[in-house]
């Protein structure tokens, strides 16, 4: 570490790259097979299609934070006492997860291992700078099917129920059996991918990313928005299901299942994003009003 901090920048840079080389090689050996399996397997399905996007965004976030991390950890001591145990835990999770097909452990281990590297190379100040990208990676970990199914079902039920109620109220010929919606002569099954936990996850990820990029100073606004993303994602899901139902009703089954199905997916994200920005602006207004009111008496 001392060598690095004392050498001047032009000389230090390639040297530093070389020092990281064994780490990069190790990461490739560990995770390239996992990535290949993921892309061939669940990342190619509708339900987990957000996985690669989350990974790409996480990498970009780490890259973006890199200079700040270097600055913050300059001259700081590293933390081997925390780094080594975390590294070993990560490797154990990897071995168990990879060999026994527990994706939760296999993919989850990458967060432990990256955190360990940062602690070992640059210390705890650097980890503090990089916490968000590592936290963001949580969203790319595939959860076990049993958990997803158990949580997805009530959500699908609720989405179907609300979509049915609204359309029925708007005088459409709607009926519902479980998660099967019937409109006119068409039957639609609200599938996992349409209103599942994964969409909630993707939207929560999207919202947190928005928060991180916009960078509020108000803690209240951050926490409130992070919690509000859950009902927002629910609303966006209801909108999507309703849009699909209406497309099917007015333009036929083929339209509903074809190109416009993908279009309804876009509607989901757009409506979620608009809702997030809208709610955020409202929160912003609320915070400002409160501040104004707090400062008014002192002026008077």
């Amino acid at each position, binding site marked *: *570490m001392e*060598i*690095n901090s004392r050498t001047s920048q032009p000389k230090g840079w390639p040297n530093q790259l070389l*020092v*990281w*080389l*064994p*780490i990069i*090689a*190790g*990461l490739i*050996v*560990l995770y390239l*097979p996992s990535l290949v399996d993921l892309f061939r*397997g*669940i990342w190619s399905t509708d339900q987990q299609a957000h996985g690669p996007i989350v990974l790409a965004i996480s990498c970009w976030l780490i890259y973006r934070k890199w200079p700040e991390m270097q600055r913050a950890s300059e001259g700081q001591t590293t933390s*081997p006492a925390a780094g080594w145990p975390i*590294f*070993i835990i990560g*490797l154990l999770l*990897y*071995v168990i997860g*990879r*060999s*026994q*097909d*527990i*994706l939760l452990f296999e993919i989850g281990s990458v967060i432990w291992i990256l955190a360990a*590297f940062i602690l*070992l*190379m640059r210390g705890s100040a650097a980890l503090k700078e990089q916490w968000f990208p590592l936290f963001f990676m949580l969203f790319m970990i595939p959860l*076990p*099917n*049993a958990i997803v*199914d*158990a949580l997805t*079902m009530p959500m*699908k*039920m609720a989405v179907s129920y609300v979509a049915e109620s609204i359309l029925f109220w708007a005088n459409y010929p709607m009926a519902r*059996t*479980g*998660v*099967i919606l019937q409109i006119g002569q068409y039957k639609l*099954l609200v599938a996992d991918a349409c209103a599942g936990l994964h969409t909630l996850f993707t939207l929560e990820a999207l919202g947190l990313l928005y928060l991180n990029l916009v960078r509020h100073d108000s803690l209240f606004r951050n926490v409130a928005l992070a919690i509000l993303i859950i009902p927002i994602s629910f609303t966006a899901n209801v909108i999507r299901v309703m849009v699909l139902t209406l497309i099917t009703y007015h333009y036929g089954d083929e339209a509903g299942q074809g190109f416009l199905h993908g279009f309804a997916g876009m509607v989901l994200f757009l409506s979620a994003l608009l809702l997030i920005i809208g709610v955020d602006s409202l929160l912003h207004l609320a915070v400002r009003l409160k501040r104004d009111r707090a400062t008014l008496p002192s002026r008077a």
Partner: protein
Amino acid sequence: MNPWLRNVVLLILMLAASGFALALRPTQKIADEGPALNLEAMIPHTFGEWREEEQNRLQIVDPQQQQTIDRIYTQILNRTYVNAAGYRIMLAIAYGDDQRDAMQAHYPEVCYPAQGFEVLSRKSGSIETPIGNIPAMRLVTSLQNRRLEPVTYWVMIGDVAITGGLYKKLAEMRYGLKGFIPDGLLFRVSSIDDDNEHAFQMHRLFITNILSSVSPQERKRISGI
């Protein structure tokens, strides 16, 4: 520690972990050992006081659902039995030769609600038979409060009967760490009956009858006892 030395140590540990993971990966399918399972031939058409009722009602097949079923299970048995008193019991057995994460049995508490059934209650317990006890789940489901359909089911991972959840993963790992990929089986019995206690009692009798009409090896494979 010298950063170079440290990073090389890290690399060696990572390579070792990668090797371990590869070596510990199970490769041997249990299903490929021993005689193949043939559900159709294994479960008799008549046993005890039960006989199979010919099904001639129209089946509507959802192609997407059928595709999922074909991907997950290698064999499926669906039969309705009736006893002398006219009590009907539906038996469904689904068998898959590889039950790991991506392809695993779908539990009735997930499937039933998706079809419009409500799960009214859900209890884990055990079925007492003269030969031994089987851990099982008991659900009471209803279709829009019109008909009650109590369900008794259990899941087999290899030769171990479980009721799902974490037990399933643990049972799989017990095989996996020895290098075996276990097969899986879902054994489900249900009847349309407003009296839950009576229904579960009938399920127990039915299951006891089936188990005593198959060979001990087959019994082990479908019930773990």
